[in-house]
């Protein structure tokens, strides 16, 4: 970045300063965002490798590549690292940090030092989990008791790591809520806010209110294991189902912590590449809050077969169907935004369209799991695995990849190779579907999840799924190389390559250290594309 040529007297790109200290002691939200981005991407790739190893073992029914115990460790690490170290902090911590101040016209977040502190807490949690790999847990990422209270693997350290990580999430949520309330530029009213900000706001509320519950739950589990207090172990007078209630009270809202920011990303990408105002702004904005609210009331739909009462199961089934409505509204509005647009199929737009397609499948298959009688058959089978990956990869990861390709020029001031990006997209799209679509059929046929070995009648679909994982892995590999290559020798990015109206595109690429030379006065929303009649 040293010899940039943009003619401006005071323009100092935020990436200008070099040296390790300029990173680890920075309070600049854009740099903290980069540190999160690198960290979560690292964990995404590591947990992805665990997934590839698992799928390789599942190529054949017998346990011929790794022992069952090793397989159980693999899915535990895959799940817990993906969930707690990649997808929960994910978009909120990386793109949320980078974009929130820029989009609302602020110089930084409300509490920059706290922001850096949150990142360090994240790293501390990650370090603890890395130590825990010495004797990795085999409980699954859900840490269900009594197994997690009795297994002789190291459950305490990994849950302690997740516990520590929770504080990072809580503090980031708090920071963003205050930032969005107090730091908006003059004229940036609530109804002019970009929808990514609405999504981040809904996410931050969930982080702040739900995360303490999982923290307490894991602390209770640690207490049970180390001091022998019987919260969950029936042999000591505890209740194992209580753990599930506590765990899902957080972990269901956490699903929305993972997906709502991606919904925000899609709401930004589509209007720009369709050159159309977002359709149904208020419907999308308030449905984020609606989802956040209802998501606190559906946790027991993970527990229909757990032994909870029939009345409880019925109520939770009903509430689960309710949460489908705001989600459906979003999908309809995104699709309607394309109507009469001028659509440019940029790689970011391809990810956004893939999101709508895949997330629709993920959402609709959720209906099977919300309906009581159907869930009894499908619960804990590969159907759930497929559904959850359609929402998490088809939804969140597509949103994440879309965001990477969309804001890449702004963030790093360079361009990547667009042709390679499209090829990688194609591999990812095909590979993903070949991996996970067969799993719906496996689930309907009764193939249980978390099986190191499996009966031979499932072999053809299981090996198809494994082949798909290779295509998917290859696509992500090309995408990663392409994005890294762009950083090294990509062309310099213009200020606003796609003609976006949002504030972050009205500053140079990469943005100056202080974001805005002077705080902007906002007079319109950021979706005013097209010709007003």
């Amino acid at each position, binding site marked *: 970045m040293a010899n940039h040529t943009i003619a401006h007297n005071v323009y100092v790109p935020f990436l200008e300063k070099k040296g390790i200290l300029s990173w680890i002691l920075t309070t600049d939200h854009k740099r903290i965002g980069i540190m999160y981005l690198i960290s979560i991407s690292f964990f995404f790739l590591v947990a992805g490798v665990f997934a590839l190893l698992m799928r390789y073992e599942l190529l054949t029914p017998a346990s011929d590549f790794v022992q*069952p*115990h090793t397989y*159980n460790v693999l899915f535990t690490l895959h799940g817990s690292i993906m969930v707690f170290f990649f997808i929960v902090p994910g978009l909120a911590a990386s793109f949320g940090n980078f974009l929130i101040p820029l989009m609302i016209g602020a110089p930084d977040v409300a509490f920059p030092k706290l922001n850096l502190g949150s990142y360090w807490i994240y790293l501390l949690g990650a370090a603890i989990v890395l130590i825990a790999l010495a004797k990795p847990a085999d409980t699954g990422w859900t840490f*269900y008791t*009594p*197994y997690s209270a*009795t297994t002789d693997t190291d459950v305490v350290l990994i849950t302690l790591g997740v516990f520590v990580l929770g504080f990072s999430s809580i503090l980031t949520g708090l920071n963003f809520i205050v930032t969005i309330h107090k730091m908006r530029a003059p004229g940036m009213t609530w109804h002019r806010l970009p929808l990514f900000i609405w999504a981040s706001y809904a996410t931050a509320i969930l982080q702040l209110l739900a995360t303490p519950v999982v923290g307490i739950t894991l602390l209770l589990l640690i207490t049970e294991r180390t001091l022998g207090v019987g919260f969950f172990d029936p042999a000591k007078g505890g209740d*194992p189902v209580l753990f599930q209630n506590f765990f899902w009270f957080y972990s269901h809202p956490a699903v929305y912590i993972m997906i709502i920011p991606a919904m925000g990303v899609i709401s930004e990408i589509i209007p720009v590449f*369709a050159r*159309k*105002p977002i*359709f149904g*702004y208020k*419907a999308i904005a308030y449905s984020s809050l609606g989802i956040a609210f209802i998501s606190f009331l559906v946790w027991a739909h993970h527990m229909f*077969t*757990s*032994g909870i009462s*029939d009345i409880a199961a*019925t109520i939770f*089934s*009903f509430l689960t169907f309710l949460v*489908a*409505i705001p989600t*459906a*509204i979003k*999908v*309809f*509005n995104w*699709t*309607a935004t*394309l*109507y*009469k647009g*001028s659509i440019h*199929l940029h790689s970011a737009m391809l990810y956004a369209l893939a999101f709508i*397609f895949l997330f*629709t499948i993920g959402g*609709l298959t959720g*209906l*099977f799991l*919300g*309906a*009581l*009688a*159907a869930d*009894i*058959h499908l619960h*804990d089978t590969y159907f759930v695995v497929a559904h959850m990956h359609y929402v998490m990869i088809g939804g969140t990861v597509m949103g994440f990849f879309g965001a990477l390709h969309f804001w890449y020029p702004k963030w790093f001031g360079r361009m990547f190779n667009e042709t390679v990006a499209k090829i990688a997209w194609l591999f990812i799209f095909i590979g993903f579907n070949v991996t996970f679509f067969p799993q719906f059929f496996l689930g*309907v*046929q*009764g193939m*249980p*999840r*978390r*099986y190191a*070995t499996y009966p031979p009648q499932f072999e053809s679909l299981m090996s198809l799924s494994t082949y798909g994982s290779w295509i998917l892995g290859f696509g992500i590999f090309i995408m990663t190389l392409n994005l890294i290559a762009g950083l090294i020798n990509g062309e310099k990015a213009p200020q606003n390559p796609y003609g976006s109206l949002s504030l972050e595109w009205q500053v140079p690429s990469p943005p100056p250290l202080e974001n805005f030379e002077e705080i902007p006065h906002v007079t319109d929303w950021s*979706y005013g594309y*097209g*010709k007003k*009649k």
Partner: protein
Amino acid sequence: MTWIPEVASNLASKVDGVLLLITLMSLVFFILITVVLVYFAIKYRRKSEDEETPYITGSEPLEIIWTVIPSILLIVLFVYGYVVFKDMRTPPKDAVEISVQGKQWLWTFDYYNGKKTINELYVQYNRPVRLVMEAQDVLHSFFVPAFRVKQDLVPGRYTQLWFTPTKIGTFDIFCAEYCGTGHSAMLGKVIVLSPEAYEIWEKGVKVDEGVGVASLPPAELGAKIYKEKGCNACHSLDGSKIVGPSFKGIFGHPVELQDGSTVDVDENYIRQSILEPQAQVVKGFAPVMPSFKGILSDEDVTALVAYIKTLK
């Protein structure tokens, strides 16, 4: 390859009805969204850089339509799912009661007449069965895909499920709730017998278990028992340690016991370990194996011994 497992209980076709309705509704919405998405993406593709687009910000009638219609359909799905669920949760009064214990990593079934089986649940065709279930260590889940029933087993409380088998045959039981190293080996079978065959089984006469079992050489019969009675969940054949000692090369060699003494693994030690597993536990292993007394016959034990001898 079939789309759906065979229908072998009274509940299965009801559950399939729910699955079918949701599939149809999902397909309608999926096709609708996909067709519109692809059509727009092609039809409105940017042809020149200075194309003009209309300023459309939304439509209240559309928002109302696509809120209200899905809401009504979702309520229909909820009610249908609930109605079938209610059936699944309400066993008839005259159901035969069988108690089920799940433990790492096998199923045991106790019948009203004092019979006990491991990993094989014997039920009668067209007669309702109620399973009263309990886990002895960690969570398990009793799942029979062909019956479309599933219920977790929880330590310290009873859970139940019921079904009426509507097809004679043998059907898979899977443990569906992750329960540790041997989870995927915690498999069983439901054996649905005709009333005549069930009567014979009830009286304790051995039912023909299939083609030529009686005429199998002992070591082959032993291999069959090893798999069917769940020995394989804890005892590997390749020297790896699961829960119990591996069978590989164990015969004829001394093993060290908990108290430090040693014992030779011979026919009598194996027999004792099967019938009174807690008597002489190998060092480094927990005393968790259930007794197979009354479950395996003398011939079965002899066959297992013969099989273990072959595992060099």
